[in-house]
């Protein structure tokens, strides 16, 4: 059961040329024949951060030079996470044509989603870099932590996408439910507000695993060290999540062609 899932994962990683190509094609297709191309992503994210930043920064009484970098990192990082999960939930369904015609490993369709969203992140990240340059880097020492933090973050996003995709292929109501849940998660997770800003109901932040995940990738960029608890939650989720996701994938791998 578990080993079947693991074998599929190994084969999927080995055919990286296929999923990177499929991922690229999708990004390109979305922006085909537009002059600015995928940089529309950068522009729209920039406008979003600018407008939310000014309104909520004022509402929360924040200093713009602190709040704008905070917000930009939160929003960009949240968007890659939620998009990976939401698109992951429809990945098998949308790749049905491929799944029914060729015996490729199945997890390539999940890796394709992650790859596509990493490409999109690279475009959105320009805004973060710009704001870091304008408002200055708080601490250089914490910056390198961002790399392993991002890897761990995406590893978590991937297993959630794997589970979501598999269940959604069988139960077609799930993609809608998952999209709605991600919307709610956006509001209860400290993305536009600071984790410390909730002086009542702080349980919402402390017991929310997503709050720890977002903190993990945000802290190094705003000059803070992620706390040991944050690391523990992220690593724990990754380990148990992957065991669960691989077991589930292994169990139902052979059913996917029937479902899509």
């Amino acid at each position, binding site marked *: 059961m578990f080993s079947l899932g693991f074998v599929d994962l190994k084969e999927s990683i080995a055919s990286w040329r296929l999923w990177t190509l499929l991922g690229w094609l999708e990004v390109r*297709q979305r922006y085909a024949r537009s002059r600015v191309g995928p940089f529309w992503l950068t522009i729209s994210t920039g406008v979003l951060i600018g407008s939310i930043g000014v309104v909520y920064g004022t509402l929360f009484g924040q200093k713009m030079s602190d709040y704008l970098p905070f917000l930009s990192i939160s929003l960009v990082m949240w968007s890659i996470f939620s998009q990976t999960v939401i698109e992951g939930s429809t990945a098998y369904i949308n790749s049905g044509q*491929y799944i029914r*015609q*060729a*015996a490729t490993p199945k997890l390539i369709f999940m890796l394709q989603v992650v790859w596509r969203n990493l490409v999109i992140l690279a475009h959105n990240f320009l805004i973060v870099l710009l704001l870091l340059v304008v408002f200055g880097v708080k601490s250089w020492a914490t910056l390198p932590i961002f790399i392993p933090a991002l890897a761990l973050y995406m590893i978590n996003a991937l297993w959630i996408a794997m589970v979501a995709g598999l269940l959604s292929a069988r139960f077609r109501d799930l993609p809608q439910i998952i999209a709605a849940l991600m919307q709610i998660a956006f509001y209860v997770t400290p993305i536009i507000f600071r984790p410390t800003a909730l002086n009542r109901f702080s349980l919402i932040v402390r017991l929310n695993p997503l709050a720890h995940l977002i903190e993990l990738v945000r802290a190094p960029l705003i000059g803070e060290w992620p706390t040991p608890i944050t690391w523990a939650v992220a690593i724990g989720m990754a380990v148990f999540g992957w065991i669960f996701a691989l077991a589930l994938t292994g169990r139902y791998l052979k059913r996917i062609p*029937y479902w899509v």
Partner: protein
Amino acid sequence: MAYIELKGATLDLPIYDVQGRSLKKTVLRMGRRNTIAEGTDGVVVVRAINNVDLRLEKGDRIGLIGRNGAGKSTLLRMMAGIYSPTYGSVVSAGKVVPLLDISLGMDENSTGMQNIRLRGLLLGMSDAEIRAKQQSIAEFSELGDYLDLPLRTYSSGMRVRLAFAVSTAVDAEILLLDEVMGVGDASFMHKAQDRLADLHSRAEIVVLAMHSNSEIRKVCNKALWMERGHVRAFGPVEEVVSQYEAQD
């Protein structure tokens, strides 16, 4: 040594869109060919392949015959490893290349050249293999400068030519073909037949589903007659095909 072995292979296809009792009855009335039953969870289940025992060895050129809905395409997909059997087993050795859908992995907005790569990767070619064969694929397709234009500008004949050129460039030990005839115009058709013949000679095992009995007599040495998911007859091509013709 390439082979495919099916032992008591049975395939139940769950049909999720068709649920409920009244619908089930309608389906039962419509499709007398297949065994249609309802699973425990209310999902309609079609037994597409029923208890097939078969061993295909090197040198076999098998023609799959049978009426529409007899399970020919499903059997090919099972041999390709796309569907795994519900009961029994399917074991194969050797690189299996299924050519089931001529339009697999064609991207509208990519150029012909990019599509060669995409389809090649999907069919299990390595990057080096694709690069080595790109030129010959391009030549075979006769598309010339059109290969640098996006696929959406192609006529349907041109698409088929490109898809056919890529698919038949794969080195297969076991080749599974599903009704791939009828490509392009008359001159290309001729070329395509030569190419298929060449492909047949290179592959160790060929399984071919076709409705043209004369074609099957020409290229196959064995025939497999499927009926309602069962093997009705399997043996030397002449024997089985004439039985099939007599019954029809």
